[in-house]
């Protein structure tokens, strides 16, 4: 029997190569390529008056220096605005190299090509750029005040303004028995994969083609972008994502200036050129996320049921909007989580600042939305003196209410309709795992010993697997190997394992016979990319559908060869056989040979296949009209709308009464992503997400000063947690299948990160009795909150003021 593969916690097939040091990451390629380096703006906002390269010209190893003036048309055009939206009335993008003005520290101003990266950096240091500094706009408050502008032609620094509403939320709030009004803040963070971005271009002068390797989350789109910018037909451009050392969102942006410039320079010079981003560059020239200020008005009844929720928020999208306003759209639409609120209104203003661009980072606007909703739930509970879990429960969408239409338009432009879920069960489970009901006793006992413990909880719903599509191609060769390809890319999610599991299950072949290729445009041309927790849902289903096509063909050919009805055949361990009569069988590899009428006897299999050859005398063409040679299947999966995963996290923290340090004692996760293809890999995704969430809650931020300098652009001061900062995480799973796709699966990539800031804020608030309205929180900030609570400047929790309408 073929071992069951779907749902099994098998070990990853990618690992032996990576563990042996045989990975092929971007900078492992292109030995001998020329090295590119960039002169980047040291100013947040400035006019470029003059670029003097005189001192650089004598350096041994200099190949070329390019500034904006050197760029040909198309390359010199503004970078594309990838995702336009009617509400993005003032979308602006930058240029590959600064065209007279820079709008954030780190913006590329000149490109150097040299014989090696050391020399390239020497040359960068010798290029003198004369800047005229302009006043910088840093921070949401300054952006909205608009005393200074980031773009002269964008009044108020407002890039976009969007309102979505269901019902009359302001009225519902005003007429509710209880209402609250408050402000929340969430700061910037960033994906920060351990491998930065990188591009390596290999031009082929003989046929005018170019192959580009990029550490990207979307090779197919990079290909079309490079083709368009270089004026080449796409057939002359190959883009390959090699092993990628983490993405988390930042590598979905495309084309990055460097992808265009390195490819262009390689063609101009007729030489291989490579650029590997360094850590300092990554902080100031790649993307950030998260920064928002939210103003919440909520009205609710005595049970804590939300009758009206009216949220206005300001979103900092940095200097440009190449990726549109997807992040604030997701915040406003995913904010509602597992709850049904009476009426809802979300209004956001997306603002320019003289800082690095803001594009999706794992979670993509959801952590902010969940922070808002979950802080709101905690406020309601506190106000009514009710249990925090109970208030959430009172607002849950119930299992029998699916599909549930939230009445909004989601990020994919489709209605926000939840497909399935079981929120009450998840809540019960996470409460049990964390010891929710017993906690007050524990807290009291600890307090008697002078220890401050607190518990927190947060819930989320995550739309995953957004369209428009992904495709899969599956081919069986005459050795019985199964070659699978899909266009989206991998950054460590284990696609080479989970897609192989799907194929092994669907085709009935040994998993060892399956080889998976992702992110290589030579193998698959059409794809969207890896983001929005969509790879397993989209490519997984596409590959399953492709397998089903292949299987159908294999059974048809095998049926002819075995003179059996295809309906009576099964495939087990790579052998097609008659059900109940396993000796009447033909190996899939032989079927692969039979599938091709041209059958030179290159190998034994072709020789063996002749015994199954169809009788001659057929009048039709060797390849029938509705058929193709080869044992292959290709199909696409294009979902009508997203599928909605969900989860609940809870944590117990201990806060040091003296130093204000926060330690997480316990962390529990209940996660529901439908049917799991590989539970070990799902769990790994959750672990990593939670760690990034903890990072964003307690450690990481982007410390800009007023002039727009990023003060912590290094791993010394950007505090990515080590193993010593991350607690043991316990996980539990529910599997509520999605009715929307053939495999019943939902995405899992981003989930872990989403509710963490909300959970930790809730737990610290519980420990301290001081309102936590701003995340991340450092010990220094908690120290000051305590001071201000002593003087009455910040509210303590549990102090109920009258909220009845006058």
């Amino acid at each position: 029997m073929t071992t069951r593969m779907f749902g099994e916690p098998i070990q990853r097939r990618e690992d032996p190569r990576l563990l042996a040091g045989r990975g092929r990451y971007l900078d492992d390629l292109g030995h001998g390529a020329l090295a590119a380096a960039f002169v980047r703006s040291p100013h947040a906002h400035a006019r470029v008056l003059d670029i003097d390269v005189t001192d650089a010209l004598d350096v041994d190893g200099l190949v070329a220096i390019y500034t904006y003036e050197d760029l040909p048309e198309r390359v010199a055009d503004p970078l594309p605005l990838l995702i336009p939206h009617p509400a993005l009335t003032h979308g602006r993008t930058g240029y590959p190299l600064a065209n007279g003005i820079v709008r954030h520290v780190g913006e590329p101003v000149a490109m150097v090509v040299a014989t090696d990266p050391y020399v390239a950096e020497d040359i960068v240091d010798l290029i003198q750029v004369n800047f005229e500094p302009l006043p910088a706009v840093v921070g949401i408050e300054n952006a909205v005040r608009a005393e200074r502008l980031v773009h002269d032609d964008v009044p108020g620094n407002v890039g976009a303004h969007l309102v979505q509403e269901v019902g009359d939320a302001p009225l519902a709030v005003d007429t509710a028995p209880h209402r609250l009004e408050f402000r929340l803040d969430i700061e910037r963070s960033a994906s920060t994969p351990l491998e930065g971005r990188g591009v390596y271009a290999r031009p082929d002068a003989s046929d005018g083609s170019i192959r580009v390797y990029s550490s990207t989350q979307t090779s197919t789109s990079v290909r079309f972008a490079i083709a368009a910018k270089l004026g080449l037909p796409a057939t002359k451009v190959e883009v390959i994502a090699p092993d990628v050392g983490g993405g988390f969102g930042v590598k979905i942006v495309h084309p990055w200036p460097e992808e265009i410039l390195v490819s262009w320079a390689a063609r101009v010079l007729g030489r291989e050129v490579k650029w590997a981003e360094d850590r300092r560059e990554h902080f100031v020239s790649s993307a950030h996320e998260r920064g928002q200020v939210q103003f919440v008005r909520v009205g609710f009844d005595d049970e804590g049921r939300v009758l009206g929720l009216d949220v206005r928020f300001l979103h900092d999208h940095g200097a440009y909007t190449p990726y549109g306003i997807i992040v604030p759209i997701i915040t406003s639409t995913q904010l509602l989580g597992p709850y049904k609120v009476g009426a809802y209104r979300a209004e956001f203003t997306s603002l320019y600042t003289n800082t690095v661009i803001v594009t999706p980072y794992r979670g993509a606007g959801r952590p902010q939305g969940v922070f808002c909703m979950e802080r709101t739930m905690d406020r309601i509970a506190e106000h009514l003196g009710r249990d925090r879990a109970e208030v959430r429960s009172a607002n849950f969408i119930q299992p029998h209410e699916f599909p549930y239409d939230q009445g909004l338009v989601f990020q994919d432009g489709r209605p926000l309709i939840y497909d399935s879920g079981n929120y009450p069960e998840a809540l019960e489970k996470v409460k049990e795992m964390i010891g929710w009901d017993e906690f007050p006793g524990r807290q009291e006992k600890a307090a008697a010993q002078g220890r401050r413990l607190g518990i927190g909880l947060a819930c989320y719903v995550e739309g995953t697997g957004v369209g428009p599509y992904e495709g899969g191609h599956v081919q069986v060769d005459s050795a019985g190997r199964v070659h699978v390809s899909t266009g989206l890319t991998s950054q460590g999610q284990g696609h080479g394992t989970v897609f192989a599991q799907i194929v092994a299950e669907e085709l009935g072949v040994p998993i060892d016979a399956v080889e998976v290729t992702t992110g290589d445009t030579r193998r698959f041309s059409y794809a969207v990319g890896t983001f929005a927790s969509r790879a397993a849902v989209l490519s997984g289903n596409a590959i399953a559908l492709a397998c089903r096509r292949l299987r159908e063909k294999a059974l048809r050919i095998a049926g002819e060869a075995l003179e059996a009805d295809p309906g009576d055949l099964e495939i087990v361990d790579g052998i097609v056989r008659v059900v109940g009569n396993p000796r009447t069988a033909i190996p899939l590899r032989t079927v692969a040979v039979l599938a091709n009428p041209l059958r030179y006897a290159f190998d034994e299999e072709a020789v063996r296949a002749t015994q199954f050859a169809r009788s001659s005398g057929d009048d039709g063409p060797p390849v029938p009209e509705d058929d193709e040679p080869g044992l292959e299947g290709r199909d696409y999966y294009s979902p009508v709308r997203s599928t909605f995963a969900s989860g609940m996290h809870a944590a117990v923290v201990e806060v040091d009464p003296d130093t204000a340090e926060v330690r997480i004692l316990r962390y529990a996760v209940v996660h529901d992503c439908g049917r799991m293809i590989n539970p070990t890999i799902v769990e790994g995704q959750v672990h990593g997400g939670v760690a990034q969430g903890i990072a964003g809650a307690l450690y990481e931020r982007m410390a800009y000063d007023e002039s727009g300098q990023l003060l912590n652009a290094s791993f010394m001061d950007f505090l990515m947690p080590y193993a010593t900062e991350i607690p043991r995480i316990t996980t539990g799973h529910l599997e509520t299948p999605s009715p929307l796709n053939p495999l019943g699966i939902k995405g899992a990539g981003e989930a872990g990160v989403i509710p963490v800031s909300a959970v930790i804020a809730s737990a610290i608030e519980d420990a301290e009795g001081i309102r936590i309205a701003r995340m991340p929180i450092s010990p220094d900030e908690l120290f000051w909150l305590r001071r201000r609570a002593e003087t009455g400047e910040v509210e303590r929790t549990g102090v109920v003021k009258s909220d009845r309408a006058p």
Partner: protein
Amino acid sequence: MKPPPFTYHSPSSVEETLDVLAETGTDGKVLAGGQSLIPLMNMRLAAPAHLIDINGAGGLDVLRTSDDGVRVGATVRQARVERDAEVFRVQPLLRWATGFVAHPVVRNRGTVVGSLAHADPAGELPAVLALLDGTIEVVSRGARRTVTGRDFFAGPLESSLEPDELAVSAFFPALPDRAGASFAEVARRHGDFAVCGAAGLVELDDDLRVAAARVAYVSVGPNPVVLDLTEACGHRSPGATDWTRAADAARGRLDPGADIHASAEYRRHLAGVLTARVLGEAGARAHGAAASGDGAHSGALR
């Protein structure tokens, strides 16, 4: 992030090292472990024209302990000092403090003397040297001098070493009889530079009352600051001492700065918290040592 070019020297003796230092003057920089210098060079925040690698100079890889104290040669790695049982017996504070220097992998390469010469006010070892009244042995062509910690640390990342001088060793005096020490710090992440750190030393008199209590601070001010808090401790036995009075005294006398990780006020607050912690622990250890009648001290790695 690639270092700028430099001329590399790898002298095979101390004498040769001193010759190169004399020749290169202010353009020269000594390379021992490189764990502070090379990051600065990779970020191009330092660009010495000459690097003098002393790892092959010979005679500098010496770690000697006696009842008087611990002498650490210029190329002795922090990890070696941390693990050495004799060092721990003679001056346990060295192990406790070194355990807070970055991460174990960095301590495998980083040197104790290098940490001192780097003179980072966020460094743990300068504070220890200052607390213990240790000294640094400095040589140049035809000259040799012994410099106290107070004279050695001239400012943030600035020592009183002359360009032609080499710090060949550091001497950390032994823990006195009836004394105890302790080290504590608050860092944002384990292994990070301290937001605030404190090394404490408590000595008892014949009646086992606090005779001396001193604390050296990390990341509080431009140099390692040492405060004598004996008065605030009130000459009681460690068990009867209210260490928070010493903490308050320390807060009043310190003038920490602010950075992106901590405000000055929070640092001042922490300095007090850590003062009480290290003195309390050092006092208990001193009492334990005195009561057991020998210089033995208990305590885990940190």
